[in-house]
C-alpha cells in the first residue's frame, strides 16, 4: 500500500539526475560539521534521491584527491587526505636569546664542572632558580654528573656534547681563560655600578690564579 504511494509520488516528483544528487551529497558533506548518515542525507535531499548510490560516485570522484570521502561508523564525512596532514600544521620557530641568569649558570657549569647547585649559587652570589637549571637540562646543554663525595652527596652538573657542538668546542677545557678574555677585549673592565674599583694589576693576578686552579686537576 505505502509502496504504491511511493511510486505515485516518484512519478509526480521525479528524482534529480544522479549527477545532480552527487553534487548535493558533496555540498552537504562539505557544509556539515558532523559526519552524516545515509538516512540523514535521504531526509535532506529531494524525494526519490538515492544518496547511497550518489555516495559511490562521490567516493570515486575523490579517490586519490587532496580530500577524501571517509566512512565513520555508519556515517560519511569529507576529510583531508591523511598524507597531507602536514599541511595543516604551521610551525613557527621563535629563537630567543637565553636569559642572563641561564647564560651565567651555564658558564659556571662549563668552567667549573662538575659543579653542585650550591657551588653555582656561591659563585653567582644569588640563588639559582629551578627553572633556569630545568631549561638548560631541557636544551640538553647540561646533564647530571656524578654525585659529589661530600656530606649529602649532592648531584653535580656537567655540560653535554650538544653544548660543545653548539659552541664549536672540542672539550670544555678549550674555553678561554679570563686572561685571554681580557686580552681579547671581551672582559668588561669597568666594574659593575656600585662596586669599588680595585687596583687592576693585583686583581688580574688573582683571577689568573683562580683560573689556573680551576683547570689544574
Amino acid at each position: 500500500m505505502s509502496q504504491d504511494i511511493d511510486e505515485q509520488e516518484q512519478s509526480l516528483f521525479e528524482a534529480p539526475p544522479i549527477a545532480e544528487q552527487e553534487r548535493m551529497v558533496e555540498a552537504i558533506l562539505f557544509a556539515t560539521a558532523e559526519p552524516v548518515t545515509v538516512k540523514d542525507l535521504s531526509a535532506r535531499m529531494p524525494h526519490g534521491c538515492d544518496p547511497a548510490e550518489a555516495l559511490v560516485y562521490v567516493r570515486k570522484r575523490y579517490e586519490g584527491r587532496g580530500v577524501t570521502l571517509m566512512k565513520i561508523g555508519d556515517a560519511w564525512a569529507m576529510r583531508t587526505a591523511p598524507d597531507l596532514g602536514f599541511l595543516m600544521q604551521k610551525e613557527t620557530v621563535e629563537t630567543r636569546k637565553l636569559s642572563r641568569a641561564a647564560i651565567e649558570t651555564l658558564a659556571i657549569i662549563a668552567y667549573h664542572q662538575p659543579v653542585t647547585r650550591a657551588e653555582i649559587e656561591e659563585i653567582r652570589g644569588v640563588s639559582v632558580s629551578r627553572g633556569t637549571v630545568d631549561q638548560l637540562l631541557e636544551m640538553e646543554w647540561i646533564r647530571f654528573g656524578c654525585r659529589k663525595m661530600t656530606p649529602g652527596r649532592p648531584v653535580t652538573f656537567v655540560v653535554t656534547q650538544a653544548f660543545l657542538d653548539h659552541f664549536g668546542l672540542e672539550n670544555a677545557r678549550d674555553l678561554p681563560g679570563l686572561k685571554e678574555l681580557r686580552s681579547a677585549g671581551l672582559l668588561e673592565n669597568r666594574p659593575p655600578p656600585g662596586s669599588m674599583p680595585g687596583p687592576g694589576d693585583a686583581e688580574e693576578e688573582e683571577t689568573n690564579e683562580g683560573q689556573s686552579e680551576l683547570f689544574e686537576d
Partner: protein
Amino acid sequence: MADDIFEEDRVSVAERLAAEALIIDVDGFEGPLDLLLTLSRTQKVDLRKISVLDLARQYLAFVEKAKALRLELAADYLVMAAWLAFLKSRLLLPPDPTEEGPSGEDLAAHLAFQLERLQAMRDVAARLMARDQLGRDFFARGQAETVERVKRVTYTATLLDLMQGYARIRTRDDFRPFILDRDSVFTMEQALERMRPLMGYAGEWTDILSYLPEGWETDPVKLRSATASTFAASLELVKEGHMDIRQTELFAPIQLRKRK
C-alpha cells in the same frame, strides 16, 4: 499665499489622503530627504525629470498641514521647509543678474541629484541584500580543520655570551663590595629560632647566657655576636608577651622567665 491655496485645491483627493497618511507617521521618516523622496513618488515620473518646484510645494503643504494638526516637527524638517520656500521663490521669480550665488536651477538640480542618488543607494542596497549570502545560500566548510600552530621556541646563546657571562661573574667577585663575613655572626632570627622551643622550660629565672648556642662561647667574636642577638631576641620575646626579663643590678646577669 493665494498661490498655495490654489495649489492645494489642485491636489487630488488621493494625494491629499496620501499626504495625510504621511503626517500620521512622520516618525517613520528618516529626515526631510527621505520624506521628499516619498513625496516625489506621487509625481510618478523618472527622478531625473522630477519637478522640484512641485516637490517644494508638496513639502511646504505637508509642513503646513502638520502645523495645522499641531504636530511637533523636528527642527531639520523646518530648516528644509525654509530652504524650499527660498528655492521656490527663486524658481518662480526671474533671475536677478545682480544677485550672487547659485541660481535656483542649480539648487533644484542638486536636490534632484540628491534624491536620485538616495534612491539609487536604496535600490542597490536591496540588490545587495538579495544576493546569495554566506551562511544562508552558500556555505563554508562545516568542520573547519583549524591549522595547528605549532610554536617552537628555541633558545640560543653564543660563545661570546657565555664568556662575557662568566667574565661578568668573575669580575663581580673581584670588585665585590665589602660584605660582613657571616661565619661568626649569630643573627637575631637564629637566636629567636633557638630560644622559642626552649621557652616552655623556663619556669624559673634563668641567665640568658644559658641560651647561647653550643660552641659559641669560646671564640670571643662569636660570643659577642651570640650574646647580643640572644639579648635582642629575649627582648623580642618579652615584647611578644611570652617572657619576663629582669636584671637585679648593674652588670648583674640578665634573667629570663616564662610569663605566668
